[in-house]
């Protein structure tokens, strides 16, 4: 199933993360990653949700997110020109023989060594989730001791800010499925 990246601006209030997470559980959607942090606006947090779903599912999630009183704005970056970045910390087992090779790969991936001890390297790598996947794959040869990924954060390219202010008419929803290809029949049963 295709991957969808949704951005949700939410009020920075207690329990909001729980409301969003519960929604995915309640409606039976799989979250691949969910990150949350503050934004340029005081009192507004921003979530990046990466999920496995088809177009129909993404529209359903979007509509349900909007139903949450604390959700200010939802955007689907899947079909937009967007920056997707993730950070990972990888602790790799090294021997004097393999260390140089590992360091070369660190260079290739433009990653950074953030800690070094006899027998281990801690590496910080940022990039698209796909790049991190690949780096992880390469490091596996040396033996990964520990790995942590932040999950993707995303932002649309271009000059404009999406901002937390909702549009007056929410085009995709107001359009019915006019703007969206009808989902296959198999998608129908999903929401229930």
């Amino acid at each position, binding site marked *: 199933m295709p991957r969808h990246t949704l951005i949700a601006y939410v009020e920075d209030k*207690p329990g909001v993360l729980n409301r969003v997470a519960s929604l995915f559980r309640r409606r039976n959607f799989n979250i691949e990653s969910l990150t949350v942090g503050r934004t340029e606006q005081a009192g507004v947090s921003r979530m990046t949700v990466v999920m496995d779903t088809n177009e129909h599912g993404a529209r359903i999630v979007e509509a349900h997110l909007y*139903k949450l009183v604390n959700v200010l704005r939802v955007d689907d970056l899947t079909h937009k020109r967007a920056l997707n970045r993730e950070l990972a910390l990888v602790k790799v087992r090294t021997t004097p023989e393999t260390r140089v090779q590992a360091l070369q790969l660190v260079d290739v991936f433009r990653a950074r060594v953030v800690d070094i001890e006899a027998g281990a390297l801690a590496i910080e790598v940022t990039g698209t989730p796909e790049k991190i996947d690949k780096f992880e794959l390469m490091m596996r040869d040396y033996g990964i001791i520990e790995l942590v990924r932040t999950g993707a954060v995303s932002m649309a390219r271009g000059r404009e800010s999406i901002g937390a202010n909702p549009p007056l008419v*929410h085009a995709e929803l107001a359009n019915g499925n006019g703007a969206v290809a009808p989902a296959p029949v198999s998608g129908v049963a999903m929401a229930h």
Partner: protein
Amino acid sequence: MKLTGAEIIWECLKREGVDVVFGFPGGAILPAYDALTKYPEIHHVLTRHEQGAAHMADGYARASGKVGVAIATSGPGATNLVTGIATAMLDSSPIVFITGQVGSKTIGTDAFQEVDVTGITLPITKHNYLITKAGDIAQAIREAFYIAKSGRPGPVLVDITKDAQQQTAELEWEKAAPRLPGYRPRLRALPSEYHRATEMINAAKRPLILAGQGVIKSGATDELLQFAGTAHIPIAVTLLGIGGIPATHPLNLGLMGMHGEAWVNQAIQQADLIIACGMRFDDRVTGNLKTYAINAKKIHIEIDPSEVNKNVQVDVALLGDLREVLGELQPSVHAAEHAEWHASIAAMKGDSAVRDIQNLPDSGHLYAAHVINDLWRLTRDHETIVVSDVGQHQMWEAQYFHHEKPRSLITSGGLGTMGFALPAAIGAKFACPDKEVWVVCGDGGFQMTLTELATIAQEKIKINVAIVNNFYLGMVRQWQEFFYDKRYSNTPLIGPDFVKLADAYGHKGLRVTKRAQVETAVQEARAHAGAVLIDFRVEREDAVFPMVPAGADLHNMIRRPHRQKDVPTKTADDRDWEMPAVATTAATPPASLHPPSAPKAKTTKAAAPKP
């Protein structure tokens, strides 16, 4: 004006126009109950169980169109509300629930009667609040009322800690106005969508309106009738849509779905355009989605965007308040007759009407359908509210009690909550003290909340209760008869002597065993000043027809038998109804496991043959 948090609660309720609340006191809500003594203008109805309070607030809200209020203490008080909250959520009832919570310092310590109420009710409320400071109470309550009644209505819970009730704070009403930047209850569709919709409506040859509860919630009866009348479009109603348009209106076909009339479901399958008005394509309405109304284009007029394309893919969605949307559509709808379409529906109707139990002579036995139809005849000239419970009697009520006015039927549709009727009727009576209120319930559901008979006694209100008593959990028994080879696992049940029970609570009790006694009993009940309970001993193994088995195609229904048998069927061989072949296969395993039978659905006229 400095007030305690407890006083702020009541002050806010008063300013929101509340004059009656339903509740049950306890430790964490004690400060609020103490402060209530200073507010004689608010009447508190003491229930016997918090679930009763929740259903009463629900019945009040549905009968009046106003926001109902229920109040309970922390822990078990709050958890007892849960069934009522979920009932209100599924049926979009505007209710504000207020619960006490342990002191803010002890939250998270598993203190006595502490439970995570906001966590528990998160998926079954439209929104909820945990308030730990007296200064935050006013805004939370104002927002709760606003959220509960605006947009698609629903329940909102405000959980208030005991110390917040005890602290004092300044009540600044204006400053406490709702601030909800993310809440958008009013949506509007684009003009281009209206244009597409009217083109479809004007081009349709076999249009059909599906009217749901939205008609009632939005007060769109007149607009819908005008709209339907202009283009002569027949209307089918959902269970909760009953009363939204008069039962006797010539365009009203009747109930759709699992226990809808055959001609209504056939009309849905044959229509070339479906205009869904304030309904959500529930599985009890659609049957198998793969074969549901596949000949029809679909327009969905809906206030909640998350309902659009959820179960059924539609061609145009008109978001917004139904009354406003219909008002905008009306000028561009062309007058039409659709005579051919009406003639074909009439033909289907003629075929079904002969099977109707109402057209059969009185055989001396008491059938629930007769009871309900007689009840309707005897009360039709009066302003009557029927509150039905959940099960067979609920379906018979929907089929044989003909509701002419909005809010004259109150029933738990989405959640199907047994035990709803009696407490909801109490709430309805408080909303409409001048109306005659009848509870129609089964002996099973009645026994779940009969404790509220004491509330009726304490409040000295007049409610009539018709128990359709077959000594079975009838609907489950019917499923066992149809789909589980008559293995009646745990469906036969005994109850108390309901006449004596009524007497014990200080009410009048009557028993009816023959159809000839129905009228006398109903008139006696109506004439009696106090509450009356009638124990209708009906045919034990009667079934609700027609029936679309769960997950089966809408046009493949189990039809009414030609002759209503006097003797209940004892074996599978002498049953007088016929299971459609498609239905048998679809009913047992999940429908999704079966290949789509789309080609079959094209020949709807040939479907569901009967000898």
